């Protein structure tokens, strides 16, 4: 199955700054997904990133706040912009894994704390 490397694993940031999270997959994939998981909560889809096109954002998430890049079929970045304490959360990237019965494989996540 796919292996995802996500960086950084955690960070503490000042409010008003931005953080870029990187997601590297060991195989080529069409779609990559970005999720947010607040502590003790379920996962919420932020956006779907296709290579060569604009990311598709879910309701409540906007490109100005969470710009996404998808320069090739194995890599994507999510930026959390102009951060506030409310952005403190775990951010996860994910891909659809054909080897695993169409399930999703997730990175280990980025634990972000905004102070």
């Amino acid at each position, binding site marked *: 199955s796919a292996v*995802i490397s996500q960086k950084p694993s955690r960070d503490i940031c000042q409010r008003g700054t931005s953080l870029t999270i990187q997601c590297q997959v060991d195989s080529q994939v069409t779609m990559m997904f970005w999720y947010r998981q607040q502590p003790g*909560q*379920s*996962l*919420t*889809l932020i956006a779907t990133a296709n290579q060569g096109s604009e990311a598709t954002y879910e309701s409540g998430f906007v490109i100005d706040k969470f710009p996404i890049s998808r320069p090739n079929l194995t890599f994507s970045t999510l930026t959390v912009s102009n951060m506030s304490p409310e952005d403190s959360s775990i951010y*996860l990237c*994910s891909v659809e*894994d054909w080897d*695993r*019965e*169409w*399930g*999703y*494989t*997730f*990175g*280990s*996540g980025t*634990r972000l704390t905004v102070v």
Partner: protein
Amino acid sequence: QQQVKQSPQSLIVQKGGISIINCAYENTAFDYFPWYQQFPGKGPALLIAIRPDVSEKKEGRFTISFNKSAKQFSLHIMDSQPGDSATYFCAPRGNDMRFGAGTRLTVKP
């Protein structure tokens, strides 16, 4: 619209016991019914999944039971072990995927 309801929110089971987690859904377009297991500090990992053309699937100690008419599916963990202590999510999918709220399972030794 709450499309996926997962219960219970938390569950404590003695070692060797049976853990049962339930998931009810509304969207009849869902056609794939997985359960994910998440340990602290890790991303969710696919545990077991079922397609709607079968009513039960077993993999080792883990079984999914699926009731299409009731729009429910459940995860059964037989002979529960302390290493099974984790958070479990149902995440039915069709054109999109919806995660349940999660069940925190604690297996006491």
